[in-house]
């Protein structure tokens, strides 16, 4: 067989991810629970994983007018498609003013514009495959001040790859101007590798290129401690263990007061996390496969991951 340099470093490609990890370990019937954020919330609640509070769900076009009623009690909120992907269609409203809804970027959205956006969500513009969708209106996360220096608008989140319930790799995702406030690497967000054992940040990447400082705030990305690291790892492990997905991406946000909250789970997590961590996934996944028979329970799995996948700083 032909060995490429990528293979010798154990870098996971998209075909191998699908054929060797997703297809064998993620049953098709479960995908709905990952693709629909409402389903995900239901599952998370049943296993005791906290999620942002849902204010309301809009399912039909004639309910759109009820938006004002749903958000009356709240100053800030988020509108998102239940089946959206990659952060598309998410609108964060920081403040309800007389003129309209003020977005995270500061621009004002008139009530008609926001309603049109919800119509688009319902007609399936942001959903996978374009089928009709529902709009979720939920609590807007007040992100932890630890990220003030390295986040540009939007909500930063932590992505953990969980393999058979064992956390395998983690990354901090930071929104930038280029990513339009979305913590999506594909859109130009910044990814920062995380040492799984300590929760300390490593190098950053943007558009597959290494960077040391955040492109907008110019603050260093390295050596920052992610708060609540142990609970983040626990949440991820629990979801990986209980959902039935063998290979899962778990996205967690850090709220100032409520601590880590589950944002969504992804049954087809991307591969850029390897670049941010400067390591291929295959050796870690194979180590988990080898150790799995000896690991009993979530506690064991977390201890294994935090010991085994520690990064030796040079």
């Amino acid at each position, binding site marked *: 067989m032909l060995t*490429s340099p990528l293979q010798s470093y154990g870098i996971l490609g998209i075909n191998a991810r699908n054929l060797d990890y997703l297809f064998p370990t993620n049953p098709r019937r479960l995908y709905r629970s990952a693709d629909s954020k409402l389903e995900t919330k239901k599952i998370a609640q049943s296993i005791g994983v906290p999620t942002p509070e849902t204010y309301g769900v809009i399912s039909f076009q004639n309910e759109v007018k009820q938006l004002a009623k749903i958000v009356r009690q709240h100053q800030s909120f988020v509108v998102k498609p239940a089946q959206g992907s990659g952060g598309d269609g998410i609108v964060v409203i920081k403040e309800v003013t007389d003129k309209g809804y003020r977005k995270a970027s500061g621009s004002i959205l008139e009530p008609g514009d926001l309603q049109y956006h919800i*119509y688009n969500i319902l007609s399936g513009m942001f959903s996978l495959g374009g089928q009709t969708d529902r709009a979720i209106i939920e609590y807007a996360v007040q992100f932890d001040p630890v990220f003030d220096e390295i986040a540009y608008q939007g909500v930063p989140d932590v992505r953990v790859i969980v393999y058979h319930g064992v956390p395998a790799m983690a990354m901090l995702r930071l929104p930038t101007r280029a990513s339009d406030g979305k913590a999506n690497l594909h859109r130009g967000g910044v990814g920062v590798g995380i040492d799984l054992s300590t929760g300390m940040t490593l190098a950053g990447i943007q558009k*597959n290129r290494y960077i040391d400082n955040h492109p907008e705030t110019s603050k260093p990305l390295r050596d920052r401690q992610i708060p609540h690291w142990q609970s983040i790892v626990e949440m991820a492990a629990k979801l990986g263990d209980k959902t039935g997905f063998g290979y899962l991406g778990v996205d967690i946000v850090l709220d100032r007061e409520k601590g880590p909250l589950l944002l969504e789970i992804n049954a087809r997590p991307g591969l850029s996390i390897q670049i941010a961590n*400067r390591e291929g996934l295959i050796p870690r996944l194979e180590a988990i496969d080898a150790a799995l028979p000896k690991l009993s329970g979530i506690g064991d799995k977390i201890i294994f991951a935090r010991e085994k996948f520690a990064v030796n700083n040079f």
Partner: protein
Amino acid sequence: MNRTFRAVLLALFLTAIGLSIFIHKLTASSVPLFPNQAYNSWYVEAKLSLKSDELGLESDNEETSTTIKFHLPRPSQRYEIVKENFVNEGFDRKVEYINNSKDNRIAVFTQQETDSNEFLFYRAIIQRKEGVAPGSEEVPISGRRLVDKQLVRFGENTERVKDNLNENLPTAEINALLNKAAKNSSDRLSLARNLYQIALRPEDIRIQAIRRNLRKEDSTVELVVFLLNRANVPARVGNGILLRSQEVYSTDFIQWLEVQQGDRWLAFDPVNLSFSEQNRYLTWWYGSDRVIQAEGANNIALEVVVQPNTDDGLTRTIWRRGSVPNPFLEYSFLRLPLSSQRVFQILVLIPIGALIISILHQMIGLQTFGTFTPILISLAFRQTGIFVGIPLFVFVVIIGLLFRSYLNRLQLLIVPRLAAILTATVLVIGALAILLESLDISLGLSVSLFPIVILAMTIERAAMRWEEAGPADTIIAGIGTIVAAVIGYFCLINPYVEHWAFVFPELLLLVLALNILVGRYNGYKLIEYFRFRSLQRQLRQTEG
């Protein structure tokens, strides 16, 4: 691993089946392996479609049952008719010879049952005689092509033409023309040549008068024959079709002029103005009457389809005996009517295009609008040609996206917005076609509905992409689509690919096998080498 092993096994199994049928066909029946070998025979199929319209012109003769007279091709200097057969369910058929088989051959179909089949088929195998060199296909058509004029015109008043012939003949004009032509002629051939050249002048008032009077507006050849006959020169109109080496194609009748010289009939070639024995066309009939004459039916459409014999007589055997010893050949596309074969020739190319797409997608990582849209675009390019196709594609996509951006401001819902974009695109393409036509630039837009519909539908994909992924991605996917479509195009127009897919459809099992293997390819995509380049550099540094 286990699954990959099973996939490889299945692929090997399919390959083995495909290859053994293929080799069996090659050795047992001498099917030609390569296309474009010198053709010396053709399949000709004439399909008559009857539509009896009760309120038609002939409805006053209710008593006559339908009778259709159809001219049949005749053996000539160059071609012989090896085998012919008819499909005439519900009709009585007899073949009549006019003038002791020296002249035309006519099949007479008489309707037996009122609710009989609406189609009549005539099929023949035409073979070029031994020792006759293959004719050039590129020579411009001698005589005039009668595209739809040959379709029967029952309303034509033949009585009036006869009256005009007997009584109102424009004798003065005819004599003037004959005298003018005779002045520079030494023999009957040069007379015919001069007359032909005079008859081609549309502005000549005498020509106009004769044409109008004798209802020979459409055909120069018929006019010249008439004039020559007036001068007591034996001349006749030949009607036939041109046999070419293209794959299955639809054809029209062509007319030419023949003049008798001694005991031979010589055909006139208006390109190099010479006379020779007619050896370019398959002769169908002589005379200026139509190919079909019918009573009791008022609407008959005729399609003549020709296929060069690429299969070395297989279709012939199938047609002749109804069955061949080899079941793989008996149950092949060659058994279908030629008009259906035309459809399958394109259909069998689709799996090959799909394989190309799956390789580009899984192994290269090319992004395109929709998964299989590029193959449809390749098929569209097959009809428009690539130099028209690509600008047309780019133009259509840009127009669509411009409309999209405007409609976006009106805040329309997504499905009506896509419908509006499609409508606007169709209107713009229509306007473009009309504009270019009026400027006398033909872009091949008239070729068919199919490419235009495909290009218009691509808009949907492009617009969706724009919504979902933004402009940069749309441009990348647009370029990817063109690249995939062009690669597909060059595969699909390849005569070898066409020939193998159609004559050896079992090779599609190999395509299927390859697809299964690609489906279990877990290696890196080409683009991933670029994506992980910086990671690779980092890791190499750490090592070193």
